[in-house]
């Protein structure tokens, strides 16, 4: 019993069909609990007032935006090394979810920034690098769309994803150098274990983060299943056309 067994589309589909209902329930319930708790049952911050509550969407979305790209990178590597179609299709399926997460993070950030910083947008390193990440997502999706042959597309996008990752990290540090930021540092540094967020805010935030993570997982699994079926349909149609 190894993980690679699920590289078989049939086994993958069977597993995802068994897991998905539970996953949907867990994802939606924890997202709803996290958001509702965050929006209605936490006190207002002393300085930020009720705008602090946007954190329950903003932070999880930003977290998943980066992790989605990372997941695409891993999936692309698996595709290039082991040539499992499921992996390539999973990367393809994750991209639109990732781009939506990036967009949510950018928009909620702008909405929060307007009353707090007095501006919708500043060329802050974090904001800028997220915008660049958004552009990378767009390029990646556009390349998938532009190429007819799915194997070629998978190969090209996988290499693009790898090169893009290097350049995305490079850009992250380049913009750091380019302009000093307005965005606050991380509130929950994992490495040190200290955090600047009080428990009343932190617990619903954590639930919301888990919820977004599960939601990403469920959406990606679901979309991967769709992609696998689409690929099968295309193969069937091609076979019928030939005979």
């Amino acid at each position, binding site marked *: 019993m190894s993980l690679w067994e699920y590289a078989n589309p049939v086994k993958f589909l069977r597993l995802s069909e068994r897991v998905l209902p539970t996953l949907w329930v867990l994802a939606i319930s924890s997202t709803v609990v996290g958001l509702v708790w965050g929006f209605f049952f936490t006190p207002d911050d002393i300085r930020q007032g009720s705008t602090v509550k946007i954190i329950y969407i903003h932070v999880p979305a930003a977290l998943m935006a980066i992790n989605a790209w990372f997941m695409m990178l891993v999936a692309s590597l698996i595709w290039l090394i082991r040539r499992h179609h499921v992996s390539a299709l999973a990367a393809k399926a994750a991209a639109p979810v990732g781009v939506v997460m990036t967009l949510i993070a950018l928009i909620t950030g702008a909405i929060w920034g307007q009353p707090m910083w007095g501006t919708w947008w500043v060329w802050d390193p974090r904001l800028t690098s997220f915008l660049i990440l958004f552009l990378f997502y767009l390029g990646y999706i556009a390349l998938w769309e532009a190429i007819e042959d799915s194997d070629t597309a998978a190969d090209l996008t996988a290499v693009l994803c790898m090169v893009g990752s290097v350049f995305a990290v490079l850009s992250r540090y380049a913009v750091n150098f*380019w302009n000093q930021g307005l965005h606050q540092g991380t509130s929950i540094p994992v490495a040190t274990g200290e955090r600047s967020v009080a428990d009343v805010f932190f617990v619903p935030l954590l639930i919301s983060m888990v919820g977004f993570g599960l939601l990403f997982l469920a959406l990606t699994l679901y979309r991967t299943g769709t992609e696998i079926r689409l690929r099968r349909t295309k193969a069937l149609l091609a076979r019928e056309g030939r005979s």
Partner: protein
Amino acid sequence: MKALLIRDIRLAVRAGGGFGLGLAFFLIVIVMVPFAVGADTGLLSKIAPGVLWIGALLACLLSLDRLLALDFEDGTLDLLATAPLPLEAALSVKALAHWITTGLPLIIAAPVLGVLMNLPTQGYGWLVLSLLLGTPALSVIGTFGAALTVGIKRGGLLLSLLVLPLYVPTLIFGAEAARRGAAGADVSTPMLLLAGISAATIALMPFASAAVLKVNLR
């Protein structure tokens, strides 16, 4: 390799497309800027390094879709792929040819256009140096983009979408170096980082370009 380089340069010059056109585009972009932002010399000299850099970058981008597309159509790339010369080397040579026909004229023209933009006197040397260090990276990264989109009909727009985000670090360090030079500040940090990016991309990008080109030629 030398023969390939000479062939590419000769083709670029004789076709009349890449050589003059990139330069003319650079000129027209720079000429357009004062119309857009106003002829205030103080403002122009302040934004000159950045505008010159973005103009050079766009001029580089413009000629990329011709870099491989013609050779792809007439089958030259298939021959190159089967030749004893590694495809990585062939693509490096092609990037070099692109740099000689596009980057180098831009670098030579940049100081002249700097006059139009009222660039401060001490900025000229640093502008040329930053372009000299940065444009090779633009050519090499652009070759990767061209190799990615070579099989796509009308891939020009997609090429820009894919390549421009990859240009971000080069642009940041290049324009920053030129800006600091023009302002009379210390340029060593951005200049070194720019040189580092160029060196790394020249060393590594041909492998990525060759990998995607092989997929496209499959």
